[in-house]
């Protein structure tokens, strides 16, 4: 394979990875820029995990908005894992499936 093609592949891969990660981070920006939001998210997620018996490692935060958090709950076990998308109200702690 020519050097030029491989270099293009390297920079192309970097570009695709950067775009994918930015798309993933964008819905979490409120949490990244505000310490208060970050703290609220932390206490809400930890409180919900404790109440539901969830392991924190089974939760992936998808997006943060002023009143709700969207998260994926995936209880890991040997074999196929279920994957639920849930919306968590940050003030009431109510959980409901993503619309």
């Amino acid at each position, binding site marked *: 394979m020519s*050097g030029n093609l491989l270099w293009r592949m390297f920079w192309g*891969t*970097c570009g695709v990875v950067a775009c994918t990660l930015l798309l993933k*981070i964008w819905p979490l920006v409120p949490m990244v820029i505000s310490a208060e939001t970050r703290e609220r998210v932390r206490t809400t997620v930890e409180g919900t995990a404790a109440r539901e018996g*969830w*392991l924190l490692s089974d939760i992936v935060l998808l997006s943060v908005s002023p009143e709700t958090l969207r998260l994926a709950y995936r209880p890991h*076990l*040997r074999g196929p894992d279920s994957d639920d998308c849930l919306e968590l109200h940050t003030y009431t702690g109510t959980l409901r499936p993503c619309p």
Partner: protein
Amino acid sequence: MPVVSITILRRYLLVVLLQCFAILLALVQSLNGVRTDEAKYLLNIPYPHPPLLRFLMGNTEAFPFQELFWRLLFATLLVQAVWIVADLGRSLATEKRVTLCLLWLTAGSLLFQAGTVMMAPITALQGLIVVWFFLKSKKLDAGSSQLAGVALFWLASLFTAYQAVLYAPVVWGIFRRNGCSSSRASVITVVPIALLLLYVAGNPLAISSFISAGGQNAGSSYEGITGSIVVAWLTAGSGILSVLGTYGALRSGRKELFISVLLLFTFLLVSFRAYYAVLFLPLFIAGVAAHPAVLQKSHLVAAAQLCCAVLLLAQTPLSIGSSPARHVMQRINDLPGTGVVLIHGSFGHEWQYESRIPILRYRSALLSKSKAVVCLERCPEVARYGFYQIANMGEEVWIRR
């Protein structure tokens, strides 16, 4: 009839012998069952490492012998990597070259870690490939396919495990020594690291895992941590390779190698784990290969290294007996009925690995949806909720009536 030369036959025989050694190392590790960190990778639990390798591992969950498969694969890769080591010593006299290979194969970190399903041994292997490029690549054109391959490999290594970043000075050295300007070499080295930081920013769990890892060290005394690092450094190369490799890295004039060694020491000061010892291994080998004067009395070096490796093995008790997770969960998996498993007390991911049923942390409010309760700490109220205790399980296990 084709004539097979003795040299080729000898090489095949060597491959087979090395493979037997790799199988032995993998089998020894499998005696302990799956550990919590291993389970984390085998189940593709999304922290702390980036996803490249754990995603592949998670996709083999359906394999009936998934654990053994990865143990064998990792042990094979680490042991057969001795051919890369042999190539590093191609310019040396046969005796010295054989000694260099022996130093790799008898290094404590290889003996103790080759059959573990951890990211550190794979990062060490990636480190060995990086130092091979560093020491062996001839003057290449800055736009050559080999350098682009190194850049892609660097990106892949970082997205396998964070610790690959410790080899960044060597990677920078590869580009710099092969005609890249200082700024171009820096950009190619740093852009993948920036992408890794972007990945971390989107994973709060990874961030909290780093903080927790650093916090565990903060609780230990400076003397305690320093002592542990010295032990890890000595164990990594079974003593002799550790000393010769570090001295070689210092005397070789290849400052990138020595900066990597220092980076690794610094990293261990902040976030010590005994299994990071294996990360020293490629740097030690590179140190010896770059400054072969340390192998002047190669017979003596080989004999001393063998003695140290044997002593190290003799001092380490063979640990047999898997965690209670396998025994308990096999029993619970076989039970009829539906519901989750509740576990009370601190537990690792190996419980999830052995389970076919979702596991939740114990709360009495969740007892109504549980099929079984495992009490690693006492949970006296379970008996009141229509559960009976199974005898002879080693742990307190309750099953719904």
